[in-house]
């Protein structure tokens, strides 16, 4: 039942992106095009979204737990750090180049347009590598250390 509600949330999210024109790169680039003919649509999308979410957040804060899940899973408070700034700079640059960001990219996937696929492939690869590579390297290092420990002291295997 919980996954049904989550599915509906995802569904509405895409509808919102479509209604707001966020799946058209021309609108995104138009918004970021401060030197040219400016398209303010994204600003109004953000205003509508932030205002609505702020209300939802205020309601959520008063509750001890969500409606279905056992607890809230919010990001731990962290200081502004280099990965945040550098990462945002990289993201913003890519956003201005492509006119897509992750949400609209996923929503637009069903259109199977070559530009969307050209954007999404490297994006998914980038996410998977950034998330998965450190894990895989750690896993390999742990296995290597275990092998070295056993070869130095074969008795460990029976331990």
């Amino acid at each position, binding site marked *: 039942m919980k996954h049904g*509600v989550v599915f509906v*949330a995802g569904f509405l999210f895409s509808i919102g992106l479509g209604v707001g024109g966020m799946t058209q*790169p021309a609108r995104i680039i138009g918004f970021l095009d401060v030197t040219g003919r400016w398209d303010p649509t994204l600003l109004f999308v953000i205003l509508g979204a932030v205002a*609505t979410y702020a209300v*939802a957040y205020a309601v959520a804060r008063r509750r001890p737990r969500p409606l279905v899940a056992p607890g809230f899973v919010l990001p731990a408070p962290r200081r502004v750090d280099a990965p945040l700034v550098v990462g945002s700079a990289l*993201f913003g640059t890519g*956003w201005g180049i492509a006119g897509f960001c992750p949400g609209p990219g996923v929503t637009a996937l069903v259109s199977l347009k070559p530009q969307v696929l050209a954007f999404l492939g490297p994006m998914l*690869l980038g996410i998977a590598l950034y998330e*998965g590579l450190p894990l895989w390297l750690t896993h390999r290092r742990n296995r290597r250390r275990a092998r070295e420990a056993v070869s130095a002291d074969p008795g460990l295997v029976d331990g």
Partner: protein
Amino acid sequence: MVTVDATWVLHGLAGGVIIGLASGMLLLVSGRIAGITGIIGGVLVPTPGEWSWRLAFIGGMLAGGAVVLWFAPVAFAVTVPRSLGLFALGGALVGVGTRMANGCTSGHGVCGVGRLSPRSLVAAAVFTTCGALAVAALRML
């Protein structure tokens, strides 16, 4: 070229409110932040208990996309002067950058700004500025 006129103010606000409702729903029901890159990351590199709800959300997004495609395919019009190579470059930068920053326009821009998180306010300022710089630079090429 897309049309830029007063009706798009309403479209934008309506779309934004719907996005806010969707994100709010995810928070109030499942206690989660509607950050798309975090959701995608948790599906591509899954940990137990963390991927099935994410898959459901993405499934919903794809279904929503299909409905948009059916009723208003113009929503997916791509009319910008960009080569496929540039879309690919943009995608790579977006993929790596959003995970490094732990969020994108939805996670930081909507949810983070919506709760006045200092990290998200900084992230939004940085990615918007860099986006504008990138667009300006490409205009000159």
